[in-house]
């Protein structure tokens, strides 16, 4: 009975994504593929801009601090502050210098993205074996070469995971867009009286799907730039054939 109700609501939400209908409050048409495609586009655009700026700012700073082996306080503080400031409050705060709209939302999302990228880049470089770095220096590499050829590749898995954290956080949070005149997939969630009960569910489904897709895209891109020997075990297992891990797991539970 309740399962049926959940399924009915789910189907109704999916229908809202596919075909437009009259608003709960009358007068206007809402929903439909065209509208949701537009929201998705805006959602990805504002998230992409935010992530791009965050990478451009936080990655070099994190790498540099890690390379110099200092600034732990800065890296840790930035990540903690970033986690504690509510993004909704920032939207209001930034009107003063970013106005209301795309730039404002992008700026808020950017601030969400910076901490994980900065912290992971810093930790990623710090955790590189000092002997390896010494060996590289002994071979006559300059500081920049050490970073580019040794530290950066060895830090790649952590940097990637930082990027994935940032991506998930940003794409999920871009839902606040409509609160500052940016029509992302948050619109059917925030305007729930207009879209009806299907609105928030439809918005959530769409956001969840693109969040997972974006996360996977970053994972695959990160894996491509990670040296083979450092790829996460799960990836290696997958490469050596799907049967092995599942057999092991089966043996443990049995």
């Amino acid at each position, binding site marked *: 009975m309740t399962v049926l109700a959940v399924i009915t609501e789910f189907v109704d939400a999916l229908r809202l994504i596919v075909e437009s209908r009259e608003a709960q*409050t*009358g*007068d206007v048409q809402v929903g439909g593929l065209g509208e949701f495609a537009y929201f998705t586009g805006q959602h990805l655009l504002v998230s992409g801009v935010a992530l791009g700026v965050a990478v451009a700012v936080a990655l070099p700073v994190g790498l540099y601090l890690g390379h110099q082996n200092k600034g732990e306080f800065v890296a840790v503080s930035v990540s903690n502050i970033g986690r504690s400031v509510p993004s909704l409050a920032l939207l*209001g705060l930034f*009107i003063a210098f970013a106005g*209301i709209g795309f730039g404002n939302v992008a700026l808020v999302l950017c601030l969400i993205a910076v901490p994980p990228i900065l912290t992971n880049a810093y930790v990623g470089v710090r955790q590189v074996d000092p002997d390896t770095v010494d060996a590289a220096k002994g071979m006559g590499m300059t500081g920049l070469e050490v970073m580019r050829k040794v530290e950066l590749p060895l830090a790649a898995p952590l940097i990637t995971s930082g990027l994935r954290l940032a991506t998930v956080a940003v794409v999920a949070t871009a839902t606040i867009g409509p609160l500052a005149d940016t029509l992302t997939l948050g*619109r059917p969630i*925030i*305007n729930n*009286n207009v879209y009806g009960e299907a609105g928030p569910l439809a918005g959530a489904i769409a956001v969840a799907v693109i969040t997972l897709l974006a996360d996977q895209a970053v994972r695959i891109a990160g894996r491509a730039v990670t040296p083979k020997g450092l790829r996460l075990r799960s990836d290696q297992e997958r490469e050596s054939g799907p049967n092995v891990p599942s057999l092991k797991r089966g043996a443990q539970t049995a």
Partner: protein
Amino acid sequence: MNRYLRRSILTLVAVLASLALAACGEQPGGGGDGGGGGEGGAPGQVIQRVPNAPQQEITVGSKDFEEQFILGEIYAQALRAAGYNTKTDLDLGDAQTAYKALQGGEIDMYPEYLGTALTSFYDVKPEDVPSETTPAYQQTKDAAAKDKVAALAPTPFQNTFAPTMLTEEANRLGIASLSDLGAKGDDLSYAGFPEFEQRADGLPGLEQTYGIKPKDFVGTEEKTEVLDQDEADVVNFFSTDGELTLPKYKALADDKTFFPRYNVSLLVGEDATRVIGPQGMKVIEQVQKPMTEEVMQELNSRVVLDKEQPEKVAAAYLKESGFVK
């Protein structure tokens, strides 16, 4: 039985007398349904202790914004002054959350706006909410009764949408009402909470009723910042917003009474209606009487602008209005 009857009659007489006195007191105050008006309202009748008021604990709840905190405190303190055992559980969240808490017995009463109650709980479309208080209240009361909730008599003030401009700009353009805005506002931009753009009781309705066609709609929850930073020309305020006490802002008159009614009715759960009884309800009505839009703006401004505690603002209101000594 006999004693009970006599007490009831005595109480009835007392209530009638206090009502008569209140009515007498009001006449010199300036008449009209505006009641007290101005700062804090006219002196009212001191709240009488209800003899043998039941001592079950009554929890007064509220939604999550300033006006609700103030109202919750006023009702709780007024009932306490009448001898009931009240406590508050304010800041519950949005309307749905508060209503569920009421039905679940977590709280015994909380103030709700007629328009919100009708549209959020009782499946009335925003466009179908009556724009007169009496039918809106009657509809709310009947619908609430089906949920075993009593909707007490509405407040004089209502907290509806109030399109607002910078006074300077409004004067320069000669815009004082929504009709003026419809006639002269085609080059202006309009800002409001995101839903306003699509709701029948929002922009689409304003266009139908007044011919208001702003050149741009800016979806935002912010208000004063939007006007101050010139992000839009007209911003959707609420009619009891504390900021409207500032001369800098001018709310445009809804001269065709388009916006639905958002007077407050205290929603009371079944058990609590028995606890406070008709006498408790009279106390609620009594303290609501001076609450005009100006009074509510003033009270809100003390919390929002002057950063005073809602509890203290409520106490000051009861004192300034003469309900407590």
